[in-house]
Every structure is written in C-alpha cells, then in structure tokens.
C-alpha cells in the first residue's frame, strides 16, 4: 500500500536520497524505499536487515550525523540527515570484508579468537591489532564532537513505573489511587506508538488520558531507564536531562518481544519479528513483503495475519511448531503446517523457507518470514533489581489479553504503593526451541557451531560461555540470545548440574547510554580556592593543582621569587594547609597516641614538627603541633590533607573513646608565610608585639596583631629563612596580604609561588609528603628516625616500626649534580650505578644559590652512602650522594 502524498523531505543513505513520509522513522523510510540491508554484522560482515522495529535488536544500527550506534527503526527521520551504515568497508553492497563469511575464513575467526589467535610469534599481534581496530567496532566516533554539559535532577516519588504501555499506565494509576506519587517513564515520544491498531491501542489511549489528568502522576516521555541501582535508584535519561529517581518501589512494565529463533539463515534480511512486520504495516503503511510465512505460537498471530493482508502481503503458510498446544484460528486461504523451520534460503533477502514436518520437508517460496513463535519478557531491567522492592506487570510478568493485563497491573501498582511483596516471573527463561545451525547471537555473529566448539573446549557453563564467546555481550545485551544460549547449553551438556545453564548476571546499562549522559550534572571539576585567589589573579599568577586546591605556581619568574626569599623578603599564600583546633580533657593522651614523637612535653607557646603515621608505620601526612594552652592544640597538615586527617583523627578518637573536640578550621583561617632575611624588618613595621630574635625565637608561636589583624604567628623555617606563618580569620586575608606588600615595598617584597618554595625547601632537604614519599615510606627510610620515639608506650604505627626497624630498604638520599651542569633531570628520572638502575628521582631542581643541580632520590640501600657516585636521567648527569641540608646546614639563618 503506497501513500499518495509526495514527500518533500529526504535524508541521505549510502549515496541515495531517501524520501521521508510523515511519521517515518529512518528505518521505515529505508524499508519503504526498498532498502533491505542497512548495515553489516560485526565479525563476518553478514547483511543486516530489519528485525524487531522496536529498538531491541542489534540489526539496524547505523551512524546518524556522526552519532554511532543509532537504532534506525525507532529514530525519527528528519530532513537532511546523513545516515551511514555500520561495519562496512567501502560499500554496503560490495563490502570486501564479506569474505570473512566463508567456510575458510571462519576457520581463521574461531570462537575465542582473541585468546588463541595471533599469539605467536609475539611480533605479529602489534602489527595486526591496528588493522583489526580499524575495521572493527560500531561506527566511527567523531572526535570533534564535544560532549554536552547536561544537567541532572533528583526526584523522590513513591513509585517509579518503567514503561507506559497499557500495563505500565494501569500500574501507575493503581499506585496513585493508593495516594502514592508516581513517575512513569517511557522511551517513546508517544506512549504506545509501537502498538498496532486494535483493542490494545484503544485501551492505551483511555489509560493515557487518565494518567495525564492525574495530579500525582508525572509522565516522562522519551526517557529511558538504563539500569536499576541500589537505593533503589533509577536513572532516566531524557532528551537533555538526566532524571535520577529514588523511589520507594519500582514497577517494571517493559513488556515482551517475540523471541528470536535459531535455524540456518535466521539472520537473512526478510526474517522479521512478527510485531516488527506489523509495525511497518500499521504505523507506516509499508508492505513488509509480497509473500509471507509466519512462525506461529503467540496469541497475536491472527492479528498479524490481518495486518499483513491489509497492506497486500499474501500469507502463504503459518508454521505451527511441533508440541504447540493448539494452532491459532486462521482465516480462510492461509495454510497451516505443523512442523519446524529448518532453513531460510537466500543471502541478500529471504527467497524461500524450508519446513520439515512429519513425512517430509517442503520449500515454500516467500520474501518475508515473520517470527511470532513465543514471547520473551523484556526483563533486562528486572533482572538488575534483585533484592530491591521491584514489581513486574503486564506482558513482562505473563502475556495475557489486554483487559486482563490492565486489571492485574492496577493491582500490582497498588501493592507497590502499599509496600507489599512483589510477584515476579521466572527470570532468564530458556528458549522453547533452538535449532542445530544458524546464529545464536546476532550481535557478535556467534553460531550454534561456535557454542558447540566452546563447550567442547571446556567453556561449558553460561557464565563462561558468555565471556569466551561474547554471546549476550553485544548491543542487544542478550535480549535476542540469552534464552537460546541457556537452551543450547543445557542440550550440549546433558545431565549437567542446573547451574551450568543458569541465567547470567544482568548489569547496567540495559539501554544505550552516552558518556555525556552518564556524567550529566557531574562534569564540573571541584576546585578549592583560598580567599586570596583573585588577588593572585591580579598579580598575574599561573596556577597548579594541589589536590583539590588551586595554588599559585609562580607569578612570572621563579628565579626572581626565589632570590627575593633568599636575599630579601617574600610572601606566600599557605592558606591551603590543613588547620585544626584540637582540645578537650583527653587531648594530650590523644595526641601522644596519634603522633610518634612526644607531645605532652611541648610547652604552651611552643611547637614541634610531627609525622602522622598509619598502622603500618607509613607516613600519612606531616605538619606542626602548636600548643596553645594545656588543653588546646593547633595542628597543621599538608595542603589537600585536611579531610583525610580529620577523618583519621575522628576515627581514632572514637575508637579510643576519648573526649577531644576536633575542629577543622581549614576554610575558616587564612595563612600567609613571610620569609627572608628582611622578614623581621618588614613585619616589625606592622606589629607592636616583640618579634625580636630573643622575644620570638625559632619554633615558637603566639597570637600577635599584624596591621590590626589578630594572627597566630608560627615561627617556622620550611624555606630555610627567618619567617612566620600568620594564621588569621580568612575574611581578612586580602587586608593582611595588602598590608604586608605595602610594608615591604621598600625592601622589594615579592610574592612567591609553589615552584620557588619547592626549590627553597629542597635546598634545606625538607621532604614533601606524597612527592618524596610513597605508600611504603616509613620514617626509617627517609632518615627521620629523630621524629619517632620508640620509648613511648604506644602510638599509631609503633608495632610496625619496631618490626621494620632493621629491614634493609630503599633510602631517600640527597644528591648534588656536577658543577657546570645547569640542567636538572626530570622528577622521576632513573638513577643508575655502573649502568644498572638503582633508583629514581623524586625532587629535582637547579639551585641558583649553589650553582648546580640538586635533588632527592630513592636508591637501593647499598648505594645510599655519602659520596656514592650516581648517573641520573637520560643525559647521565654525574652526581654524588650528600648528607644534610644543601643550604645553611647549621640552621643559623632561620634561627637568626
């Protein structure tokens, strides 16, 4: 039956312009235009035509305007689209890779190809792999196509219903009538659009009107659920929004589809599921074929015959499988045959069907074979919902006449709303039939013979078969083949335990999902900033990541910043440090257990460096321990370490049952370090407090007022010069920064960034936790035994440290490069002795003060002695191991 209205729109496909009729999908337009083959299969490049017309099978995957993996049977057609076939080399009709589909070629593409082919000689695979990659896959990704920044929204309805067919709509109404809030989602723009005309469609229209009018039901069109997750949580992908639903109960009403049947030639174009052929006929007025043979089994067969005849298709025969309880009532002129299909003839298109029955075999001429043998529940989602409050309704539960199905679904919806138990079908049912030849998995071209071979090789259970053959792992995710695989497995391993042929685990995604859809609402990169971020921007800073923080890398010249600190005065924003106020009656006992060094003897107003260890004695973090008063301490840890340190401290506190208040003040307090030979001179202009050498010596701390701002001033020497960290209310950071710059202007005060600081501290031999340490670093390995007091009764990591005390391990050493070399090796560079690899560099810089490269490196213990000669990096820079700090080893400058 042809439409008379001439289409004015079209799209391009394989060098042709395909006219579009109103309501066309790409698939219906192609079929109307006489296109039988739309793509090729994955492995053998067999022809792929239309099968389900409902988006469930893998046959009609095409590329549309650069988007790969589009099921063209359900994608609406639009003017100007560029539609391309997939898995095709050069030409859809004359694909040279179709030569893979010969007996000889099949021998070179055996089941388990990747596990046993091209293994030896070893050089072969790297040569062949790029070629395989070039021809394999599902379409060609357009790398210039940037991901969308989609948003997500969370919803908390009482009940989520998946599928807005008659059963889903009825279930939604049943739940809403119990007072529940309901979200019902359907993949189509128009629910039920895939239904043919008839009683079912009429019932749906009525239900849809009720649903749309119901105040407690929200209908989401064009939203597909791709998985059920714990919670439960059901993500629904819409056209441009991800709706994350967190319901109390779920009703899955995704229906059923006709089962794929297995026989020789079962994948030839022209073999179509019965409902698919009917959709073409009733929704798109397209004649699916001139002469049809129907494999019967479902109650819908009479409807299918009527629909086909209405568009002019002659039904030559209806095959009623052996063992079927009773055949359908057939209209006059349609010949029933009790038997089984053994073969489809034809390669480009069905030409005939061979049917075997009692007394012989008959070849019936036809160009369309409709499979209406049985229904397979659309259960991929349901199988993911084990141990969740999930209910099933409609054909998914049990195919039934529409009125019966609707009534039952209403009850199911009510039960879901009331939180009652669910009635579920047997999941992962075996197929009724599976022939001795043909393709079981049409996604991956896995034949009955392939499964037979795999079972012979020992991959006899469904879970092993799945992984070895990739059956059920293709784009249809087992919809077309799972039941057949179970039936075949059982047949090939007679007498085996039931688990051999058990249903396999279903996992998300149940439907195609794009990466930008999965990341909807989660595309932004969390970035922590100090209160001085905009000030740094104004100074022309470039930034780097330090954990989640953005810190200043430099302000334009690392050398200038470095020299300012060594020769004059510099300031650096250290507000990113983790900062804690820890207090309470048990605080001293708590910190004594937490740190490996002594804490109780720190006097108020003083501070001490401390390592934080884990139970293995491995360095977790480091920082300072300032004692404010008898029961109050102020602790710092490294940038990005605050959250972990807080969790660690709270965990230990609760484990030990101590009364200690741990207040994370990282975001509440800013911190600026002023350092350099002129630091005191500058700072003294801003404070009336005594900051003289005697009045405020090294490793002391107390609250002073700087430029009118109360600051906890901590006298430290990370960069090796006189300096104070000024910890203050974060809201006053800009004020303090500006005051320091103004006061130091005449002294050439210079803001410095992380890079200058890294060199400055390296010259002092100070480590950076996580740069110079790794997950095995104990204090012993970095010569920091001085920070561990084994005489203490107990501290976190003590037992491990005692055990590891005498274990020879790699050591962190300091090295100096040869004078004259201005090139510092890359961090991570190899360290060699006599041509053998003995370690790697962790920190590396050229020191402007010393005039040669310096660094830290892990080396084997026998190469850690002072004076050991090393070769470093690809240029084999000569270096020697040194002990102590490179700069001011006595610490006279920082104590000045």
């Amino acid at each position, binding site marked *: 039956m042809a439409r008379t209205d001439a289409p004015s729109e079209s799209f391009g496909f394989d060098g042709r312009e395909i006219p579009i009729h109103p309501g066309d999908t790409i698939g219906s337009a192609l079929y109307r235009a006489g296109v039988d083959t739309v793509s090729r299969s994955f492995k053998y490049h067999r022809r792929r035509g239309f099968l389900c017309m409902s988006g469930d099978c893998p046959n009609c995957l095409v590329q549309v305007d650069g988007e790969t993996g589009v099921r063209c049977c359900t994608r609406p057609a639009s003017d100007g689209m560029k539609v391309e076939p997939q898995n095709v080399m050069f030409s859809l009709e004359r694909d040279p890779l179709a030569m893979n589909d010969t007996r000889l070629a099949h021998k070179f593409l055996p089941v388990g190809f990747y596990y046993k082919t091209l293994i030896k000689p070893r050089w072969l695979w790297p040569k062949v792999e790029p070629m395989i990659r070039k021809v394999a896959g599902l379409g060609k990704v357009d790398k210039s196509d940037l991901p969308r920044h989609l948003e997500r929204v969370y919803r908390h309805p009482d009940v989520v219903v998946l599928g807005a067919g008659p059963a889903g709509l009825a279930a939604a109404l049943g739940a809403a009538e119990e007072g529940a809030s309901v979200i019902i989602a359907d993949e189509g723009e128009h629910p039920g659009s895939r239904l043919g005309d008839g009683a079912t469609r009429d019932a749906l229209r009525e239900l849809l009107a009720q649903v749309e009018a119901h105040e407690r039901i929200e209908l989401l069109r064009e939203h597909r659920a791709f998985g059920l997750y714990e919670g439960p949580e059901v993500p629904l992908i819409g056209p441009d929004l991800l709706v*994350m639903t967190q319901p109390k109960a779920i009703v899955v009403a995704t229906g059923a589809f006709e089962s794929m049947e297995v026989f020789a030639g079962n994948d030839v174009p022209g073999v179509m599921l019965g409902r698919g052929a009917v959709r073409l006929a009733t929704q798109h007025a397209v004649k699916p074929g001139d002469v049809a043979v129907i494999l019967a089994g479902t109650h819908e067969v009479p409807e299918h015959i009527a629909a086909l005849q209405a568009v002019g298709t002659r039904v030559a025969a209806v095959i009623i499988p052996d063992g079927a309880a009773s055949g359908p009532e057939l209209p006059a002129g349609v010949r029933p045959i009790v038997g089984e299909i053994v073969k489809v003839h034809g390669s480009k298109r069905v030409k005939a069907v061979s049917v075997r029955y009692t007394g012989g075999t008959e070849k019936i001429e036809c160009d369309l074979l409709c499979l209406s043998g049985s229904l397979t529940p659309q259960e991929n989602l349901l199988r993911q919902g084990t141990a969740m409050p999930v209910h099933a309704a409609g054909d998914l539960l049990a195919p039934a006449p529409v009125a019966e199905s609707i009534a039952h679904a209403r009850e199911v919806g009510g039960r879901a709303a009331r939180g009652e138990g669910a009635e579920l079908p047997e999941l992962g049912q075996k197929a009724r039939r599976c022939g001795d030849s043909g393709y079981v998995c049409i996604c991956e071209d896995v034949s009955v013979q392939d499964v037979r071979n795999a079972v012979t090789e020992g991959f006899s259970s469904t879970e092993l078969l799945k992984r070895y053959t990739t059956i059920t792992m293709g784009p249809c995710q087992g919809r077309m083949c799972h039941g057949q695989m179970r039936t075949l497995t059982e047949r090939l391993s007679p007498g085996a335990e039931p688990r051999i042929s058990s249903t396999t685990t279903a996992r998300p995604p149940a439907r195609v999902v794009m990466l930008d859809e999965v990341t909807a609402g989660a595309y*932004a990169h969390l970035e*922590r900033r100090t*209160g001085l971020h905009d000030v740094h921007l104004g100074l022309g800073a470039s930034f780097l990541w330090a954990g989640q923080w953005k810190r200043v890398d430099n302000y334009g010249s690392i050398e200038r910043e470095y020299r300012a600190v060594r020769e004059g005065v510099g300031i650096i924003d250290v507000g990113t440090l983790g900062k804690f106020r820890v207090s309470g*009656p048990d605080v001293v006992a708590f910190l004594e257990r937490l740190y490996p060094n002594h804490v109780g003897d720190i006097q108020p107003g003083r501070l001490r460096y401390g390592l934080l260890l884990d139970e293995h004695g491995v360095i977790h973090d480091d920082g300072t321990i300032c004692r404010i008063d008898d029961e109050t301490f102020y602790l710092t840890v490294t940038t990005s370490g605050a959250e972990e340190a807080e969790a660690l401290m709270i965990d230990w506190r609760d484990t030990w049952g101590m009364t200690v208040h741990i*207040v994370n003040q990282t*975001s509440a307090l800013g911190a600026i370090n002023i350092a350099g030979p002129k630091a005191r001179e500058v700072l003294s202009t801003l404070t009336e407090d005594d900051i003289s050498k005697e009045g405020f010596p090294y490793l002391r701390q107390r609250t002073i007022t700087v430029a009118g701002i109360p600051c906890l001033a901590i006298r430290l020497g990370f960069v090796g010069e006189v300096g104070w960290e000024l910890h203050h209310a*974060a*809201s006053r950071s800009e004020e303090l920064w500006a005051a320091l710059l103004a006061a130091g202007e005449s002294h050439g005060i210079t803001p410095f960034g992380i890079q200058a600081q890294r060199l400055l501290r390296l010259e002092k031999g100070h480590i950076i936790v996580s740069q110079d340490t790794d997950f095995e670093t104990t204090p012993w390995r970095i010569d920091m035994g001085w920070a561990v007091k084994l005489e203490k009764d107990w501290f976190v990591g003590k037992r491990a440290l005692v055990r590891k005390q005498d274990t020879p391990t790699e050591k962190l050493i300091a090295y100096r490069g040869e004078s004259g070399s201005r090139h510092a090796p890359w961090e991570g560079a190899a360290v060699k002795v006599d041509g053998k690899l003995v370690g790697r560099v962790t920190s590396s810089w050229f020191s402007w003060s010393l005039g040669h490269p310096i660094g830290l490196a892990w080396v084997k213990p026998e190469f850690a002695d002072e004076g050991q000669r090393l070769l470093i990096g690809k240029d084999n820079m000569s270096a020697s191991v040194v002990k102590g700090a490179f700069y001011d080893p006595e610490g006279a400058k920082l104590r000045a």
Partner: protein
Amino acid sequence: MPDGWEIAEAAKVRGFGPPEALDKLTPPPGVRAGRVAGDEVLWVGDSGRVGELLETLGAELSGYGNLATVVDHSDGYALFALTGPERNEVFSRLSSIRIPETDAFVQGNFAGVPARTFCSADRLEVIVTSDVAWFVGGRLEHAVHDLVGRRAS
C-alpha cells in the same frame, strides 16, 4: 529568573560538648540550630549576632567546663539562601537529598561537596565551606540558567 539565590552573610557558630548537654540547648529566637553530630551543634543567625551566639552558647555550655567548646566559624562557612517558588527544583538539580516537608536540618552532598542545609517553609539555606563557595555559586548559576532555558522553551 525562576528562583532566587544569594550568598547570605550570617553568623555561624559551632558548639561541641557532651550529647546530653547539646540535647538541652535552646537557641535564641531567629537562630537556626542543627545537630551536626552527637557532640556538635551549629547555630546560624543574622550576621551581626556572632558575639551574641558565642556568648549564649558559651553560657549554656559553661557548666561542662573543658568538656565543651564554642567556636566562631563564620569565615569558614558560606551560606547560600534559596528562595522563591522553585527553590526545591533548583536544589534538586544539585543534591540527591529528599527535602523534608517540615522544617528540618539535613546533611549531605550539594553540588558535589559536603553541605548542611536548613529547610523551612519558604527558604533553603545551604552551608558549605567557604573555599568552595565560588564553585557552588557557579553550579547554582548554571542550574538556574538551565532551568530558565527549559521554562522558556
């Protein structure tokens, strides 16, 4: 704009003490109180009330001596006030938390960062650490912009 949000200046004071002490606390009128943990409460009031909150909370806990601590954390937290008829929709763009139907204090991620939220009949107050305030503000801006676009289409 379908909904309003702003970073609101506010006093934020944290109190630590024995659970039984915190159970008995009664915040002054106009002050929102949230129980962050068994041993911690958060009081939020107008920005000029920092001193009052510190004093009141300190006085209420004074009987517990060194078992209790009160800290001004106004600089450490940023408060986003969401108002207007679509405040819940905007909130739901950025958090999986089910908004209670009655006044409540809830904790959980908002825009991917840990947050504390006071929910009331006409207002949602989302509190995050100030170092991520700019980030959360950006996410809110984007969410509102997206919502406006949808409403317009």
